[in-house]
């Protein structure tokens, strides 16, 4: 296994790594056009728009802020821990315990399976093969993301960054369709969140580092009751634009 971990995450080690092509690998992995199936999911934004919790760009910003510091932080820490070489199956069980909503667990595993397919074709690795064999119906997406980052030569902090960014870029993109929101406004929401996304990725990378000595229970478990409750309801809608 490649061991590219550094100390806790810093902006510098996210961007700069000694492995040629790693920075571009991070761009590729975070690109909404990377064929990992994320475009079909709104990260809870569809349910939030339907019951009036998001009405405009300001509401989207509030939603993204809350999601970043809860689901985003948890996903980023799981991803960083997988990149850092913690047992992927223990991380997969930790993700289950941190996702009480059965609907959200099923979404995370479906996204994990889709990312696994894309990742094995793009950055083949023994770590991805082993996880795919152990969880043929899909491991949790952040765990797959972390092993993908490792296969691409990225450090844990970069995996955390990709997961933290993804936790808000999905809802922002979905809101453009759901609310006919101006795409410029959605992009501005993400740009204004950038310092918090960076900080969340750093916190997640530090937690992953600590988990190497204290075990996976040291990873964050921040919960978002509205996301959990509305996801169960959304999964039962007969007609919807997004799968979650």
């Amino acid at each position, binding site marked *: 296994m490649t061991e590219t971990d550094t100390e806790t995450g810093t902006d510098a080690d996210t961007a700069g790594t000694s492995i040629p092509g790693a920075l571009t690998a991070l761009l590729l992995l975070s690109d909404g056009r990377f064929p990992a199936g994320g475009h079909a999911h709104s990260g*809870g934004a569809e349910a*939030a728009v339907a019951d009036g*919790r*998001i009405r405009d760009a300001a*509401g989207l910003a*509030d*939603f*993204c*802020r*809350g*999601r*970043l*510091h*809860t*689901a985003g*932080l948890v996903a980023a820490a799981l991803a960083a821990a997988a990149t850092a070489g913690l047992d992927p199956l223990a991380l997969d*069980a*930790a993700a*289950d*315990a*941190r*996702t*009480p*909503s*059965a*609907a959200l*667990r099923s979404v995370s595993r479906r996204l994990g399976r889709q990312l696994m397919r894309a990742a094995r074709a793009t950055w083949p690795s023994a770590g991805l093969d082993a996880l795919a064999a152990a969880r043929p119906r899909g491991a949790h997406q952040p765990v797959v993301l972390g092993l993908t980052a490792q296969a691409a030569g990225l450090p844990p902090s970069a995996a955390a960054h990709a997961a933290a960014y993804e936790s808000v870029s999905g809802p922002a993109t979905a809101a453009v369709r759901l609310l006919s929101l101006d795409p410029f406004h959605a992009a501005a929401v993400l740009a204004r969140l950038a310092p*918090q996304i960076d900080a969340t990725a750093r916190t997640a990378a530090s937690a992953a580092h600590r988990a190497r000595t204290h075990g*996976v*229970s040291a990873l*964050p*478990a*921040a*919960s*978002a*009751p*509205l*996301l*959990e*409750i509305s996801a*169960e*309801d959304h999964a039962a809608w007969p007609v919807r634009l997004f799968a979650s």
Partner: protein
Amino acid sequence: MSVTAAARIGAARDRYGGTALPVLAGAGPLALRRTRAARRGEARVTVVGAMSGPLGGDRLRIEVDVAAGARLTVDSAAATVSLPGRERRQARYDVRLTVGEDAELRWLPEPVIAARGSDLRMTTRVHLAPGARLVLREELVLGRHGEEAGHLTSRLTVEQAGRPLLDQELAFGPGAAPGWDGPAVLGPYRGVGQLLLVPGPTPGPALPLPPLTSRTALAGGGVLLMSLAPRTAFAQSAAAEVAAAEAAAAEAAALTG
């Protein structure tokens, strides 16, 4: 002057098929009373607040050990109100619950209310042996009537036979991560309740849930009900909803045997 106190409850099966309490040691503000159990074979302990609190800087702890085959219910006489106190330091409240094989714990405390200006970190860690049964309720209220919330972080970690079953942390109030009162986390709601049933009731007919409530099966077994409530008068809203959901779940269990 802050308080450090640790209360302990130990329950064990006695030779008549009932439950004895070989350890019942209250401490500081955590006074313990043996109260009348509702069901045969069970013991019940009520936590009686001997003083208000926790206050800033206090460190309270309750340890409960239910040995193999014993059945225990723990409840409380009143809500726990987290208050600022003179010391502007964080208070801690740590709950450690251990349930042995074929033992049962019903942990049903009254709500924890985070009063304005308070700062409390709660941790609840539950270790379940294989075959252990648990009913656990946690209700958190954001401020007393008409006031803003204090800072509260509550982490609930449940493992069964060494495997993680549930690990959730909720944080709100001044000092919590931004977005806690936004549309992804708690929105405008002032109370949040969770009810965990391990094992979960056998799935029965689909029962209607109150609004803002979900009922979900955990990956490792067990069922979690989660409920949000609009007002601080939690006892009349979410708690009642959670209780109704619990009754519905119990009813479902009875229906399906």
